[in-house]
């Protein structure tokens, strides 16, 4: 059974992602910021990390960079709705910094599950 780590400061998003992925048969763990996410990843070695970009404490770009250093085998999916001005192009940046796939918020459940399945299939 594949393990999915969700790193997002928004409780609602975490809950939504947990429900969707548990329904799909994955084992899910959560973290509410980058620091906790990196610790959780080192502890549980997930197959996939879903990382929000803008979070307090340690944000997504730094988190992705650190996950890439510590989890050589895991896939990373970056999700973001952009910054206050929405001009940052965070998702392109996340891809350049090591994310395997990106999704812009808001996204649909179907789009999410298909992306996750494709990422995990590629891993195998």
């Amino acid at each position, binding site marked *: 059974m594949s393990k999915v780590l969700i790193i997002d400061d928004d409780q609602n998003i975490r809950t939504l992602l947990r429900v969707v992925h548990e329904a799909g048969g994955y084992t899910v763990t959560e973290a509410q910021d980058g620091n906790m996410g990196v610790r959780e990843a080192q502890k549980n070695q997930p197959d996939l990390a879903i990382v929000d970009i803008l979070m307090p404490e*340690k*944000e*997504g770009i*730094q988190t992705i960079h650190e996950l890439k250093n510590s989890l050589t085998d895991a896939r990373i999916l970056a999700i973001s709705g952009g*910054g206050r*001005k929405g*001009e940052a192009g*965070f998702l392109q*940046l996340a891809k350049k*910094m090591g994310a395997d796939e990106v999704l812009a918020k808001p996204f649909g459940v179907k789009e999410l599950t298909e992306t996750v399945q494709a990422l995990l299939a590629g891993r195998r």
Partner: protein
Amino acid sequence: MGAAKSIQHWLRKVAGIHHPGLNDEDEAAMEMAEGLESTLTALPPTKGRLRRPLTKDNFEEKLWGFLTAGDELTAGSVQLVNLMEVHERFTRHWGRIGEMVHMLVQMIISDHLAEDDVYIRLREHSYAIVFPGLPLPEAESKCAYIAAKISHYLLGTPMETSDDRLQSIAFALDEAMLNTGDSLHEAFCQAVEKAENRTAPSPTTGSVGGAAAQPEGPAFVEMAAGEPVADCLLGSDAFEEYLELASADTGAGCVGGMQILDIDAVQQRYEAYWDRIGEQVMTIVQMVIEDHLSKEDRYTKWEGKSFLIYFGKKSPDEAKKVCHRITREITKLLAELDSDADRLAVDHTILDLERTVIVKEEPHLPQIKRLLGEKMSGGVERVKARPPTKIWSSDQADAVPLDISFSYWPVWYVRRSVITTSVCLPAKQMPDGRTRYGHGLLGKQVNLSSLVELDEKTLQRTCEDMSRMFENGRKALIVCPVHYYTLSKPDGRKRYMTVCDNIPEMVKKYLSFEVVGLPGEISPVFTREIVGDLQPYCRSVGAQFPLNRSSFGNLAGTGINLIGADISDQLLPESKIMRLMEQFVSGAEGVKMEAYIRGLHSISLVTSAVGSGFDYIAGPAIQEDSPSPDYVMRFEAEDLFSHLIARQKMEISEAATG
């Protein structure tokens, strides 16, 4: 009453339709009150914030940004909104309503601008709008809609009718503008002129739009088309000339009453918001003054804070009484403006407005002439006050005994993904191996002399490098830091201004100053004085503040247009810095200024700075001792992080081996 109808209603009223049974004065007061009330409540709401037209300097800077944005070089378009039709319609009353009309037009334009679009007021009655991301056909459609909306509100045409009387086709943003030897603004104006000549309106489209087409009918048109009345607001020369003529007519000196209406206190009261509502306040004051003048009266602006009013056929006592009526009226209308404070985000401080407009008597022509003369000669003397000295020889520059080098730091313009400019920072390798920048290299022994020396040398070096770049056919915008402490002391400022006097003209166009260490509680007047001294030597002035500052109200109207923070020495946890960055940017946006941040030392902080909405962020040094920065260029997003990633990898590697 709909907004458009209400505005036309007000325009008709101030245009002179009379109500039977009222004397002129009562009627004027009633019309003015009704007009202002309906206008303030009926103006169409701006969807976003009201964006004022850019100043010449800011516009030039934006153009530069558009034109140097790589592959978008020729994508943008420029459109012209011409208000001549509106002006011709309301010629008689333009002095009274002109600025209000402009404000309405600006609100409508603001509502249709995308984030990157900008506009500028050109000449008396036109606006140029730059749509940097739109090709000509789309820009034309957008401008046609703006013109139709203006026409609907001001001329009464149906909204669905396309009104090409107000819109001129313009031109595509063009690389050719970059190649001109003139300033960008001049090149832009030439391009506008060329486009206007190319698309001069035909006789059929150039008319006032046909009186018969106006829904308000012939009566109003007839009045508006009546004999023009001379504008009663005169320039100081014309005002003096008018007094001379009045004096010659009577042969007995200047008869009539002369009053000074001092609005300094009004300006101070709205100081923090002057850039947003100053024009509106001044319009109100002028409207009230004009409403109380008869055809023999004239007035002029007096050093920006007062109005000098000449009442041709009134005794000084009568003139004083009228002036007091004007005062009361202004007070009442400003109170209405205050009641609209929430919409304008003005602090609701209650003041006794009756006391804020001061009336002074100034009865005779000789005194006026003396004052006018003093004003002019004072300006000349001030310019002559500093003897220029040549200090650009490198020998002299090297004679400054500070043992420092210089480092250029790129400043990324986040929204357009370009390196927009570079900061020239003095740098010094310390005994412990660390490099210190700015005044940090002076250690704890900072005194006025050493700081001035540092600032002088930084400016000299900046100008030398820029001159060298220009000689090699390259251009770049450079920021030169200067300490507030240097500028706040008479000796320091004198020394620094002496260096400024020798800045080559070409350099001035591409040089920005960054005032470092401006105190939080500094008087806006003193800030304006400092900035005013720097402005003739540069294209813009910014200021650096501590990151924990989030209120910049006292900078409005001081001439500072960019505010930033350096966080290189911040020892706070990253999450706290992130929150402070959010607040800092919100504060900057509150006074409509752009914000920059320097000294970002982790990936998280760089991303957070971008996410917080900083317009500019300063990256790593281009090289340790750069002879000159390169030409403005695009950057790749990962460049922002490359040095941080390299450092992090080194730390991980050291930790693993150590």
